[in-house]
């Protein structure tokens, strides 16, 4: 039983259930982009079970969302180590892509999906720090403060890393276009 602002009088089970419903898609989406695979359901489960087991260590200074995403990142890194030898199979489900598809020709839609996939592939080639910041700040649209919390960095470091990662991204993107 924990008594605090986010779980007054709730059992651990109730807390984790609440958090699951609130953050499941954030975790899922993050894991898909982080691992480059849409087959991350097991990882989502692992993240919440780890959160459940570590609930005693959770400090209220951070938001549950950033705490859980930090766990998700660690789980994804572990998973990456396990699958190191395996070839990455990018399977980002872009069917949810909210684009004004009806304004575009089928060819244009295909081209835009292709562009997104290429950009994403470039992001995945970057160093971990750059990639982390781009996924969290760029794709997941998290604030500098939230990103800093998840990555355990200062906000200044997050800003610098993000800017440099964009520079690298531009450079690599230019190379591909040539």
């Amino acid at each position: 039983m924990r008594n605090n602002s986010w779980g007054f009088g709730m059992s651990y089970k109730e807390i984790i259930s609440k958090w699951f419903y609130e953050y499941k898609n954030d975790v899922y989406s993050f894991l898909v982009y982080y691992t480059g695979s849409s087959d991350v359901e097991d990882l989502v489960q692992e993240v919440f079970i780890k959160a459940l087991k570590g609930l005693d260590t959770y400090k209220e200074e951070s938001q549950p969302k950033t705490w859980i995403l930090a766990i998700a990142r660690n789980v994804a890194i572990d998973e990456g180590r396990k699958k190191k030898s395996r070839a990455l199979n990018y399977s980002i489900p872009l069917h949810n892509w909210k684009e004004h598809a009806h304004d575009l020709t089928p060819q244009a839609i295909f081209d835009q999906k292709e562009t997104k996939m290429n950009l994403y592939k470039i992001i995945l080639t970057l160093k971990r720090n750059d990639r982390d910041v781009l996924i969290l700040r760029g794709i997941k649209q998290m604030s500098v403060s939230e990103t800093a919390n998840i990555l355990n960095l200062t906000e200044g470091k997050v800003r610098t890393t993000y800017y440099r990662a964009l520079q690298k991204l531009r450079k690599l993107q230019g190379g591909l276009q040539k």
Partner: protein
Amino acid sequence: MTNHDDYTDLEQEMESYPNLKLDEDKMQHIHQSIMEAADQLEHKRKRKNMVKRVNVVLSSAAVLVLIVGLALSYKSVNEQKQGGGMDTDKNELDQDLDEQNPTIQPDKNVAKSFLKQQNYSIESFIGEDSFTLNHDLLMKQPVLSIELQTMGAYYLDNNELVYGSQSLMNKNLTIENYLISGHWREKFVNRAVTKVSVVLLNHEVLGGFTIPSDGESDSEGIWSFHGPATDSIVFADMDMDQITIAEKLFSQKLEKLKSIKRNDAQISKYKIQSIKILNDQAFHGFDFRVEFEVLPAYKDEFVLAGGMEPLNNGWVRNGLSGKVFEVKRGTYVLMSVGGGPVKDIKIAD
């Protein structure tokens, strides 16, 4: 010039990546698995808490039982102390008590119990040291002195803590009636006495028993004789007759020491390279100095207690002025000026 705005297109591109959603069926399945894990964890936590509580309850109960036990034991001892001395054999005891301490009430029951406790210890003590005296005979031996060694170098005299050592110079006193008198009880119980050495008139040393300090018993029990037995004499507080006896005994010992010194083979047997008696005539005030040395290889067998000090060359010297210094087979006993036996020093054969 490059600035942050140059990457707006990239940022917009990234922003347009869809926020992916977990499939509903999979979501339910995952949720169910997490809830099952939560149930298991909850169960484990409850068990752990229960075990903790049980441990706390058991510990508390144990402490309570201990306290009750101690209280009962204390009460029982007090009752015995108040009522048990009525049956004492006055004829024998009063004589001793008058001489020793007229205010002390004898306590035969407790003394008997004590004697019973000691029976095993004494016998085992005798057995260990190849004594041929039987227990009954031993208990009838006249006592030359009973020395109390207290924490520090203090002893009790008429229930007063006095620096030095105490000798109960009563030739008629036997160990048995001394113990039965309850005298020991008044002197030892609840006092800082840590060790008692009993020396018989025929200078056969019974040994001593260690009195627990701070209510803690030693490994051999609350009252345990400890050895090894050896010849030793306590010179403090003697009257002239006793001094004469002691002097006589002591001079015999000195002769014995000298003979050992001359006997190289025997010295070698005991692994003692040399024994020096520096001022063997300095018996004035019962104070003399002995120095002995052992081969460096055996120096570790000497415990550095009291006045023992290591020399630069690896030899060990007794730096104290000793009162009694005797060599027996495999055993040294060193007596310090005012503190009774300092340490039994064993030398391997």
